[in-house]
């Protein structure tokens, strides 16, 4: 169990600054998901915690201890890699026990812990198999067991589900959430998929261009975005955004708009258009509406409109510009 702290951390690759003086605290025992588009620096952060891509300057603390000069293996962290990084020439048992053998743990303890870890991921009957005979999902479990067996204070996961097929991914998502509940240790999980972030995290750290855009729980992320980037990135289908003449903008979630032949009585913003696509997903149906002249009227009530200033930051009810911007929205069609 350990919290993780970044203090004024900067990371450069050659002359290219990827992260500049970042401060971030990841709560002890949390399931924190670092999410963002590719190249946003999320994997870089994870590798700094692991010690396999150390920071250029600043301090990284794991459990209050500065780990800058501590070797990767001695930081109390375990990592699951995107392509699993399973040692191909070792059996499942050898793969899982390798880290324990290296610290000269007694053989009986190793055996016991390997079995425990293996049964946690449901791979007991594969202990003596070679990785090449296993499927992607099974290899993923081995990679997990290899992390679990070390009893780490922190689990680091770098897009561990991205190589699995869609169905298995959903299943593994649930298993990871359950595993986190069971182990009660800190999980730091990197993904570019906002659905994974929303479904698994108790805290999401949304990054873009090496900066933290917003750090909050999934429901705050969704309902109360700080800026345009968060509003656009979180949620599927994403928020409808319309730019107004002076580069301010407003937006609304698709589920808060009603579509009908006429404008709703409580509508603050309305526009008309033509339905160009309809996607039946079972529990919901997605309509794509092109807002030219047409016979479909979209109505959005006042409380579901999000305002953004010209700098892309959110304008909330307590802000001075709020009233004027809201008035401007009403005049939009």
């Amino acid at each position: 169990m350990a919290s993780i702290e970044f203090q004024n951390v900067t990371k450069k690759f050659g002359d290219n600054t990827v992260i500049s003086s970042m401060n971030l605290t990841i709560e002890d025992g949390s399931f924190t998901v670092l999410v963002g588009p590719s190249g946003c620096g999320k994997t870089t952060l994870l590798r700094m915690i692991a010690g396999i891509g150390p920071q250029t300057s600043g301090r990284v603390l794991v459990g209050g201890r500065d780990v800058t000069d501590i070797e990767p293996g001695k930081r109390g962290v375990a990592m699951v890699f995107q392509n699993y990084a399973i040692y191909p020439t070792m059996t499942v048992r050898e793969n899982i026990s390798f880290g324990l053998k290296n610290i000269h743990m007694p053989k009986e303890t190793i055996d016991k812990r390997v079995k425990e870890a293996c049964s946690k991921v449901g791979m007991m009957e594969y202990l003596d198999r070679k990785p090449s005979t296993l499927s992607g999902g099974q290899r993923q479990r081995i990679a997990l067991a290899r992390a679990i067996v070390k009893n780490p204070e922190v689990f680091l996961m770098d897009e561990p589900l991205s190589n699995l097929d869609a169905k298995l991914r959903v299943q593994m998502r649930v298993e990871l959430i359950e595993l986190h509940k069971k182990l009660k240790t800190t999980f730091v999980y990197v993904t570019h998929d906002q659905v994974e972030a929303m479904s698994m995290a108790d805290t999401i750290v949304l990054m873009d261009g090496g900066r933290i855009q917003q750090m909050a729980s999934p429901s705050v992320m969704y309902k109360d975005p700080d800026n345009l980037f968060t509003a656009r990135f979180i949620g599927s289908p994403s928020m409808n955004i319309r730019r107004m003449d002076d580069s301010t903008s407003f937006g609304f979630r698709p589920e808060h708009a009603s579509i009908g032949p006429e404008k709703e009585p409580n509508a603050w913003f309305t526009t008309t258009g033509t339905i160009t696509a309809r996607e039946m997903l079972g529990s919901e149906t997605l309509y794509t509406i092109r807002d030219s002249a047409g016979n479909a009227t979209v109505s959005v009530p006042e409380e579901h409109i999000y305002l953004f200033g010209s700098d892309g930051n959110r304008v909330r009810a307590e802000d001075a510009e709020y009233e004027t911007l809201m008035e401007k929205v009403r005049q939009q069609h």
Partner: protein
Amino acid sequence: MIAPAVFGIVVFTVIPAIQMVVWSFYDINQLNPAKTRFIGFGNYTRIFQSADFTRALVNTGVYTFWTVVVIMALAILLAVWLGTKRDKLSKFTQAAIFLPYIVSMVSIGLIFLQLMSPNYGLFNAILEAVGLPKSQWTQSSKTAMMSVILVAVWKAIGYYTIIIGGALQAVPTELYEAAALDNSGKVRTLLKITIPIISPQLFFVLIIMTIGSFKVFETIQIMTGGGPNNATSAAGGVVLLIIVGVLTFVYFRLLSRKVHYQ
């Protein structure tokens, strides 16, 4: 579609090999083919009774053993070093150690004869300068073998370093990162992860090197112990074939569990 290839192999490899085996049982007289006669294992008894033949065989064995061991060890270490550092020095080293491979053996022989000259050679000058005893190099039967092995290693090391280096590049970086997180030191990572992964290539190099080394024997044997009309050459060739065949078989039996094909 493969018929032309098969034809080529049959004409140039299979038939000569069979021919060699057949001839090894005959006393061949090239001037008067009528006098050529079947003598059973006569040639074999003759070569094994010849001191030159057995000495050449033992020497080739020693030579092969040491070149293979030294080249393997050095090539792995060099390849690992060249693979981890991608600077100008390592690029230069890579080119430099490969260079001898493309130089003709005749030039190499002449150059090394000069370098190894007991009285005027550069090697002895260096040994003397650093206060070590001089060596007779090729001039003494005690150090001749070592000298020959030194040249062989020098000539071939670059080639095998490149083969092994190529194999190393195919090892995913994440495995080394995972090993670092698993508290595995550099040597342990090399022995437990890197070498097992590149074992198929190492095994290939081992067999190719052994066969290549043993072929030195042919030259020596033909030049020294061929006898009139090279009568016993065919028998010598068969003996070599059997030795290399047995060695390869032994390698496969001993090492097949250590070689990981994926």
